[in-house]
């Protein structure tokens, strides 16, 4: 069961809080990680997935959009292992990745990879969602290597 950051390694925000301020139409994306899942916006009219969320579907402009819980699985499209301590409180190294969610490989989701040997990260790596609580109610959509027998 994904938990708060008590057990998470390689998380840049662990000792420095960089909390996103977001619009109402995004709030589910940033807060629904409390159930351990990844929630992305989908159009009820044309079924397209949207990320980042928008007030209207980017494909058909329908306002009938809603969040769905996804499988939480995806692959690493690209990544970088950051070693630079941009802020004094930053814990380095950490991995920033662009994730392709299984539901739509054209989506690009910025996220941290946690609980991972930073030298083992590679493009194509299979990952699963592991949301991390960073504020009272804000969850970052971090990912970790996918465990086959989970």
């Amino acid at each position, binding site marked *: 069961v994904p938990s708060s950051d008590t057990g998470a390694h390689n998380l840049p925000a662990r000792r420095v*809080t*960089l909390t996103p*301020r977001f619009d109402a139409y995004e709030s589910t994306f940033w807060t629904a990680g409390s159930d351990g899942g990844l929630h992305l916006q989908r159009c009820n009219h044309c079924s397209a997935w949207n990320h980042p969320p928008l007030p209207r579907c980017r494909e058909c402009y329908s306002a009938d959009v809603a969040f769905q819980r996804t499988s939480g699985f995806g692959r690493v499209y690209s990544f970088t292992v950051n070693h630079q301590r941009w802020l004094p409180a930053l814990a380095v190294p950490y991995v*920033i990745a662009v994730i392709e969610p299984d539901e739509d490989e054209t989506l690009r989701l910025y996220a941290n990879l946690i609980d991972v040997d930073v030298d083992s990260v590679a493009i194509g790596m299979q990952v699963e969602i592991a949301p991390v609580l960073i504020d009272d109610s804000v969850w970052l959509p971090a990912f970790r290597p996918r465990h086959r027998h989970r």
Partner: protein
Amino acid sequence: MAELEDRVILSGVGQSAVTRRGERSALALTLDACLDAVAEAGLTPNDIDGITTWPGEDFADPGLAGPGLPAVIEALRLRVNYSAGGPEGFGQMTALVNAAMAVASGLSNHVLVYRTVTEGSAQGGGGRKPVGSAGSVEGMARWSLPFGGMSAANWLAMFAHRHMFERGTTREHLAAVAIAGRQHAALNPKAVYRNPLTLDTYLSSRIITTPFCLYDCDVPCDGSTAFVLSRREHAGNGAVPAVRIAAFGSALSERPSMVRWQDMTQMAAFDAAPHMWSRTTLTPKDLDTVQLYDGFSILPLIWLEALGICEPGLAGPFVESGATTRAGSLPMNTQGGQLSGGRLHGFGMVHEAALQVRGGAGPRQVEGAQTAVAAIGGGSLAGCALLTADR
């Protein structure tokens, strides 16, 4: 009907001193560059009736923004028919296209364009600072800062990794960009770093964000670059030969965000470069030299591919072969680029391209150069210009 580019010349260029730790103010540097450019154009500030810049004063990152338009208009006591500055658009080249449009449309006769940075002194000895600041994150930054994507280095490192994965680019290819730039910097007295760089030194330097090491990232500096764009009829009246802008490239068709880019082997350069070539009968074969934005070493490789100079995946081997050195077939970043020359944030590329095509580059002149590309931007920002001798 004449196109925009047929109605405009680059009548003068100017550049301040370029230093790592400057003691002069951003405004002082700006006035140095602007007065140089105005004098080259054979004009005085009284003749300037338009002004543009990028990004303007109201920009938070330390040292990234120079003085805003009001400060420069006041200091030079300009009376302008057109003025525009701001950070949005297709990157720094936006300021030059704005100026050209003001001239071509008849709003102005002579437009001053400037870009000033004081990142060298603003960032002190503490190294490169992150974009934005800690705390609550608003705007587009909310999609990168909370994940520790705190610098353009992080964003563009992910383009580099994908280019390596799909196109076979290697760290040695990236090193070749940095090493060639350092060789060229030796001929540029303004360059920040002029001592030779070896592959061993490159490979043993500290990693910033994989695959980028220290030498893959450009060097913050203090400096200002300025241009005057004038009506074509002004050609021949300046103190230096005029330069034609044969074509601009300003197109953007991808979703304009660094953090959701679809194909990270490409950048907005793949929109801007074809747009530029569509506006001229010249082709990549006509190029004598290229000045390609190298905020990070991967960027000129992707520009070489976007411009059609190299097939996708062959820019790395092209640079590694020595083709882009002074002795090669297409000298690139002949002033040292930003990696060694200093991060003048794109305007240095246009400045060098102009000097080269008018035969004014001194000891680093590419013999007989008549045609050059200046390209600015990485990731979701891209603008380019094809400069030719006005002969």
